């Protein structure tokens, strides 16, 4: 059955502000994840440049033989991306949903400082549920 491996949130300046592993094979350490984040940030930017016609907003789906990477960038420049089993559907919706959770439990948390790493218990909880829910809905289909 399809699985979500991990979730990343990158702030507008390419810093990794959230990383959660949902049981991927090799959980990477902080440095790696940070590096990877900024790398992705750049790639995403480059990809926009690559586009032959203007008005491209960067990579949304990156498919590899072992995983899919779905990326969603909010208009405010925050990037959310999930790494999941190849062909896991409904990832856009999941990302949108996560975005909403982000606004509710991160941005509305007065203790959260903008652009800083996210440490919000409630966010984690609701994320876990969201991912769960996603599974359930998949099974349903």
């Amino acid at each position, binding site marked *: 059955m399809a699985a979500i491996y991990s979730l990343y949130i990158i702030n507008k300046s*390419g810093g990794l502000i959230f990383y959660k592993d949902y049981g991927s094979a090799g959980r990477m350490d902080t440095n790696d994840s940070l590096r990877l984040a900024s790398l992705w940030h750049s790639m995403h*930017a*480059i990809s926009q440049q690559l586009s032959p016609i203007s008005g491209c907003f960067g990579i949304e789906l990156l498919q590899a033989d072992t995983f899919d990477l779905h990326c969603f960038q909010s208009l405010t420049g*925050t990037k959310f991306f999930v790494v999941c089993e190849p062909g896991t559907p409904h990832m856009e919706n999941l990302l*949108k949903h996560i975005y*909403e959770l*982000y*606004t509710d439990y991160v*941005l509305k948390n007065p203790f959260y400082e903008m652009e800083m790493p996210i440490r919000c218990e409630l966010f984690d909880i609701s994320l876990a549920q969201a991912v769960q829910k996603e599974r359930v809905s998949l099974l349903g289909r």
Partner: protein
Amino acid sequence: MAPAAPKSGDVIFASVDRVNAELFTLTYGAIVRQLITDLEEVEEVNKQLDQMGYNIGVRLVDEFLAKSSVSRCVDFRETADVIAKVGFKMFLGVTASVTNWDADGTTCSLILEDNPLVDFVELPDTCQGLHYCNILSGVVRGALEMVSMKTEVTWLRDMLRGDDVFELQVKLLKQVPEEYPYKDDE
């Protein structure tokens, strides 16, 4: 990805959690009053309100984008329109109208006939010069800045000062392009 069709302000407003307006109105009133007491100079209060508004806008814009799935606006005109029709509605439950576009479409006015902030409010003579609703201008400025539009927001008309409507002038200073962090790669 294909942007979901932007919902109308009313639909969104119906969907979000809501509270009695008077709680909001009175709370804001109390804040203003307290600020005046503490800062003493009206100008300071205006500044503070604008600052608070800015801070709010910076965070609120994301909620706005997330919940009203508005897609990327092609230009400032469209942005202004979305703010007026969707943004104001979604949060304040009232819609604004956009007018007074200048030639090159970088300056316009948001007109509010109805404004929950000022229910019950009457400015005392000692507080002339106070932009009671200055928090709104801050919010707009902050929100737009997050979608990389530097703006200058000023009050042109204020019902508390006897005008017939609230007029908020939004002036687009510059549109900051997303900068590409190549240097990170080297």
